[in-house]
């Protein structure tokens, strides 16, 4: 496999991440609300702020400088590997990110795994038992999963499993057990679309000529399915799983709130509300890098699975 296209992609992605940070900064800067005022209001409970104190605080934060000086300072420090410190907590952005990304990553991986197992498994089952009870039940399950609001499901799960059945704690983040319920909620929610896509892909492929040919050549149903059909549905599944993983790593604010998880979603939302510039820009950049890694892995998988893509790359040469 050629490394050059991948390296090229990574470089372009990095530049894109920086460009996104510039746009993000611009939008933040232009949006209503003064960072010093929002920061102080957040710390002091929305009290009426003294104008002179506010000006002094803005000087300390450095938010009274213009757009370009502020962005330039941040950009130069990023080039030195310093993402700055949070206006709100005083801790380095990289530390804040490190404290929270673990939780978001674990949640994202577990929930995506659950989505994958449920989505692909039920999708295949549904397609293979088309129009039978299992197919109908799966489609109903998929409709319900997609329709039920996540926050409602989360509270219901909490009430049933944590309060009534007393199987889980309501509020703690201490290992795998704390992530079971939130992962289940996100996994079930996310499985709905995967079920549908998998089902459609399987049905489409089962009616393709190559399947008929394979059967005609005497291959068993199982061998046809596992050896041929499954490979052909992998591409859309990988795409969906990658998107799902990226979205979940971004942080699920609702789930983090309800299950009291210290993830990036809630933290970033708070930072946006109080215009904590270093945190917002830093998180955008760092998450951008994670997205680059994930999409690169997805590209490698496409390349590995689909010979047409490999062939396409060689033909270009």
């Amino acid at each position, binding site marked *: 496999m050629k490394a050059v296209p991948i390296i090229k992609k990574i470089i372009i992605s990095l530049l894109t991440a920086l460009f996104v940070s510039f746009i993000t900064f611009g939008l933040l800067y232009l949006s209503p609300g003064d960072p010093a005022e929002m920061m102080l209001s957040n*710390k002091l409970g929305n009290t009426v702020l003294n104008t002179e104190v506010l000006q002094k605080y803005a000087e300390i934060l450095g938010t009274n400088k213009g757009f370009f000086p502020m962005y330039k300072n941040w950009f130069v420090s990023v080039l030195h590997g310093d993402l700055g410190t949070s206006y709100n907590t*005083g801790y380095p952005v990289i530390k804040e990110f490190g*404290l929270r990304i673990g939780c978001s990553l674990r949640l994202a991986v577990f929930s995506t795994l659950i989505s994958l197992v449920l989505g692909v498994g039920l999708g295949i089952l549904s397609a293979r038992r088309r129009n039978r009870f299992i197919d109908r039940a799966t489609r109903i399950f998929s409709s319900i999963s997609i329709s039920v609001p996540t926050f409602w499901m989360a509270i219901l799960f*909490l009430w049933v499993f*944590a309060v009534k059945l007393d199987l889980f704690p309501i*509020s703690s983040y201490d290992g795998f057990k704390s992530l079971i319920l939130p992962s289940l909620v996100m996994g079930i929610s996310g499985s709905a679309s995967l079920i549908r896509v998998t089902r459609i892909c399987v049905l489409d492929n089962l009616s393709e000529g190559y399947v008929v040919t394979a059967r005609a050549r005497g291959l068993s149903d199982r061998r046809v399915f596992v050896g041929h059909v499954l490979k052909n549905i992998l591409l859309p599944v990988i795409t969906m799983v990658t998107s799902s993983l990226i979205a979940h790593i971004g942080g699920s604010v609702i789930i983090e709130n309800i299950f009291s998880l210290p993830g990036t979603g809630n933290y970033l939302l708070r930072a946006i509300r109080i215009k904590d510039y270093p945190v917002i820009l830093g998180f955008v950049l760092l998450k951008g890098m994670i997205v680059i890694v994930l999409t690169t892995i997805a590209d490698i998988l496409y390349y590995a699975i689909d010979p047409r893509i490999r062939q396409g790359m060689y033909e270009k040469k």
Partner: protein
Amino acid sequence: MKKLICLILILALCLPLAACGAKKAETAGDASGAQTSGTQTSGTQSSGAPAQGSGAQSGASETAPQDPEDYTLVLGAKADFTNEGKNLVLDTLMWRDNSYEASPYIVTTEPENNYTKYTLKVTPGITFSDGTPVTAEVVKYSIETLAPASNLGFVATLESMDVVDDLTLVMNFSAPYMGLNYNLSYVYCIKPGAATAEGNITDWTGTGAYVLVDHQPDTSATFEVNESFWNEAKKPQNVKKVIWKVIPEESARLMALEKKEVDALGPDSHAGAGISYSALNDLMKEGKVEVEFRNESGSPNTYMYNWKNGFLADIELRKAVTYAIDRQAMVDAVTYGIGYPMYTFLADDAQYAPRNGEHFDFDPEVSRKLLADAGYVDTNGDGIVEKDGKKVVLQLVTLSSNETYRTIAILFQESLAAVGIGCEISALETTAFRERTNAGDFDVCMCHPWTTAVAYFTTQGVAEAYNNWGTGWRLIPEFVDYSERILASTDPNEIQSLFDKVWAEIYADYPAIPLFAAGIHYLHTDEVSGFIWTRGTSNLIDLSEVVIDRG
């Protein structure tokens, strides 16, 4: 190739799985130099019981003479302790009492030269929990670093701070400043180097009743009693350990309380448990948890009029609006009867409350008469009065963050409609709300309620510009003089006389309208009691008399 890729994927998935079984993330508290015992205290709640503190060995409580459950209090909080839980580990320089008046604590103050110079004396013998003594240098550092981020007015006029000796500090101001004591009751005493230039505390070593032993930001914090706490009167008698659990979602907090995963909700915030009235109503009926109200004399939800510009610059219209509002309907609909209508800005038993019977009334007939007498007539039969060819439609600006605020606005609108005054509601997100109020782009807006007479009047009474909560209350220039004299006086009778004048002016001018109050509620299980809820100690959590009885 394919096998290699599969292997890489499997390994990649195994890593987070393995990490999950590992200990929880490194805490910021450890890294920032917070007091730690060297071992991680578990923040996990075993179901049905508060934290065992499994594995914790604290230098602050090496011998546990009793079951940890019996001396561990678990608080359910909306936010991290660094928000409003600081005083568990840090003390303020002055203490705010029940009436919001500041009294000597870590420092005492002696004003001179017409309040342009203060000599601060540090109470001797106070140390941080690591043994570092509190000196004048420490106090100076605390003021310099934390005052700008605490919205304290003296920052603008402070010229210099000079350390005279170990326990004496002199502060010089460019102009008389009477409110220093009150301001210092918001400044925490911190070790030099414990905060960033922006006033963010990163080292939580304090002089307070507890020592921070573990901190997982936005998740939990664990405190153990400070055996060298200097204030014997406030030393916790029973609660040797506190676990602060962050539970942002209201339903989850209530579930945790019902399940006894936490002992209490509410001490973490000056606004109390912050449970919706409907949930509160259900809780009070079910009796599963104890519901307490912080003070019988609540500060009312208040709406501010734009008495400077627009329709409500006309005092007759302001009077008509005030008479039109049905507060009881709000109490019934919004608070499920838990609250009570208020016709004054402060409760009758509050310090320096109006004593000459000043109050507002509800009387739609009087409102209609006032409108008619002032020339507001519905000429075209559309149900809305006009004057000078202009339909009277007031712009009401409120916050959208809470359903209660929106409901209050709708009921306000309905009351006005009943007398023929139109009203358009803008329920806005906080930033947008502040933009409108700061620009004076409203006729009526949500206003910060009166806290205490002195605290509120000496800040808001002298302000005249538009601000986050509408506009200042400086109705007449004399308010500035009254404020200075109130701050300078130590004679309650003199202060009351000044407030008599203030109230006479306010109740004659109708600058705002009090609506209703409901008290600030706190919830706890039946296993704990003895919380001290006082108006003056907002943001100051006092667990000195809490009793834990696990029965």
